[in-house]
């Protein structure tokens, strides 16, 4: 098993004909992901190295049986593309696009929830299930199959931790980038639940950062509902208040959203928090061995 994307993923990529869309779409296919279609309005009938392109996601879903959608279109059109994917009836939408206006995402978030569609992102690196499927921009070479589920707000930080796990001889059931925006389709708690139910996952590494209270809510949720061990890492202890640290959502507002508060909330519920990515990977290996 794995979560969100697995052997049965049939992927349609909105924005496949763009430069980034083509680059990553083909990388995903090379990894073994079943990329069944691309979507670009007015380019229906073309193909990208053999991947057929349709005008709409609905056509791609009807003709190619796509069940998973990846969104790679520019920010100002991206919320509409996610809505289109939800209307087309796919089960999972993974939105890579960065910079979608947050007001657009409020409506899209609730639309996905009401229809029971799993939305990951936006502003995320995607989901990789090592050995099965890669949907997004995660460089797969740093991850082997294994028992550790990873869920993270950050891309490169996840690669850093993944690589340390790999060097320690460990692998991953799935790597889920939930994204660094103020409103994302799935929070830590949603993904923690999926790992809890996944047979292959024996433990979970959760990588958070400043801003919002998703980590604090996750701490409560872990105490109440997650039986598998969780190890965490939080970035941004040195971040000043009121400054956006790269990600749109990575900002300490007033006195809320600090790294210290998140660490304390997690440790209060018995979750071990690593001081650095290296220490976090070491703790994970130690927990798994015990």
């Amino acid at each position: 098993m794995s979560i969100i994307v697995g052997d049965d993923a049939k992927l349609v990529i909105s924005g496949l004909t763009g430069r980034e869309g083509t680059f990553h779409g083909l990388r995903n296919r090379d990894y073994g992901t079943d990329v069944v279609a691309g979507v670009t309005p007015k380019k229906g009938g073309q193909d990208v190295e053999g991947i057929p392109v349709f005008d709409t996601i609905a056509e791609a879903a009807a003709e190619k049986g796509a069940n998973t959608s990846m969104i790679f279109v520019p920010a100002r059109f991206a919320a509409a593309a996610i809505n289109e994917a939800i209307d087309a009836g796919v089960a999972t939408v993974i939105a890579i696009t960065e910079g979608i206006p947050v007001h657009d995402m409020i409506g899209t978030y609730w639309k996905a929830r009401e229809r029971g569609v799993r939305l990951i992102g936006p502003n995320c690196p995607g989901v990789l299930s090592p050995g099965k499927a890669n949907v997004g921009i995660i460089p797969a070479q740093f991850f082997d199959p294994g028992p550790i589920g990873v869920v993270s707000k950050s891309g490169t930080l996840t690669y850093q931790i993944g690589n340390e796990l790999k060097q320690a001889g460990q692998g991953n059931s799935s790597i889920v980038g939930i994204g660094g925006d103020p409103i994302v389709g799935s929070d830590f708690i949603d993904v923690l639940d999926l790992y809890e139910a996944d047979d292959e996952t024996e433990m979970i590494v959760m990588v958070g950062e400043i801003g919002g209270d998703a980590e604090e809510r996750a701490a409560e949720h872990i105490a109440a509902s997650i039986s598998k061990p969780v190890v965490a890492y939080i970035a941004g202890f040195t971040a000043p208040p009121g400054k956006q640290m790269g990600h749109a959502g990575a900002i300490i507002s007033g006195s809320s959203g600090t790294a210290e508060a998140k660490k304390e909330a997690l440790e209060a519920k018995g979750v071990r928090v690593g001081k650095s990515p290296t220490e976090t990977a070491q703790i994970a290996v130690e927990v798994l061995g015990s």
Partner: protein
Amino acid sequence: MPVPSGKHAKTIEEAVAAAEEIGYPCVVKAQVHIGGRGKAGGIKVAEDRDEAEQHASAILGMQITGPHGEGPFEVHELWIEEASKIDAEYYASIILDRSAKKLLVMLSTMGGMNVEEIADKDPDALVRRHVEPAEGFGPEQAAQIAADAGVDEDARAETAEMLVKLYTAFNELDATLIEVNPLVVTSDRRVVALDSKTTIDNSALYRHEDVAGFEELSAMDPQERMAKEKGLTYVKLDGDIGILANGAGLCMSTLDVVAQAGGDPANFLDAGGGSKADAIVAALEVITSDEKVKAILFNIFGGITRCDEIAKGIIEAAGRIDLGVPLIVRLDGTNSEEGLGLLADATLPDLHIEKTMLGAAAKVVEVASQR
């Protein structure tokens, strides 16, 4: 939105002229992009011309730090307005509630202090109501909130109307926060917004060109301004160790491990995914323009970013600009061997290669402390 009448002023002379025109008493207010100005001494009442001049000269050029240590922000502009006779001070705001994924409308009759203080002092005095996305927010909900908050009966209709206008403005402006504090009832029983703070979603600025013009580049730190012009994601900090990493999360983490090693980071700079040589050159130009910087740490974990591209950027930058400070480089991930090979062949002066992130953090702190 009913507000007191007033005028902008950029000099003491303009401020005095505005005060003379408005009449006394009037209020001299610092115009900076942060709350808590009153407590910082940035809002003063002037009873006559002399006082207007004194306040204007004291406030212009003042450095104002936010209630949570934001800033400091230097005051370049004033707002001179008629003083209001106040019967009651309320607090009204709308924020984007990230955890609920809904808008949150808040109203309290305990205005004048910040929302955390109200919540601390008397949680019941703060009415909080989420806006259901399917329902929206109209006069009915607004009237209910005004009643629940205990707004004076004769001011309820106007307060409710104000909340609806705030909601409209919130959506039209792509705001993530609009706070009116205080919202006052004047002695002639009008409801007036005396002060407001608004935050607009950066990602939506493309559809608000009028608002984008309010950004105060002149008030920004010189490095932050330079970085913005070059399209880099940069945040100035107080220390002396320049930082460049790829990815926001890894960059924050790099700052943290440098601090743990006993160092003091000078900046946050996310070189982004797929960084090319030109971006590296631009980043180094910004970092080295900060005279406090004694050493620079490059922490790169190449995923999509290729380490050989980063190495080429470093070599090109060293040829194009005088770095003047040691460079500690950690390259790992995609094409790291090629990148390290290029750096070894280039034999740049004062370049230190480290294998791990923690090793690199320790090294940069050591090197900086020797300068």
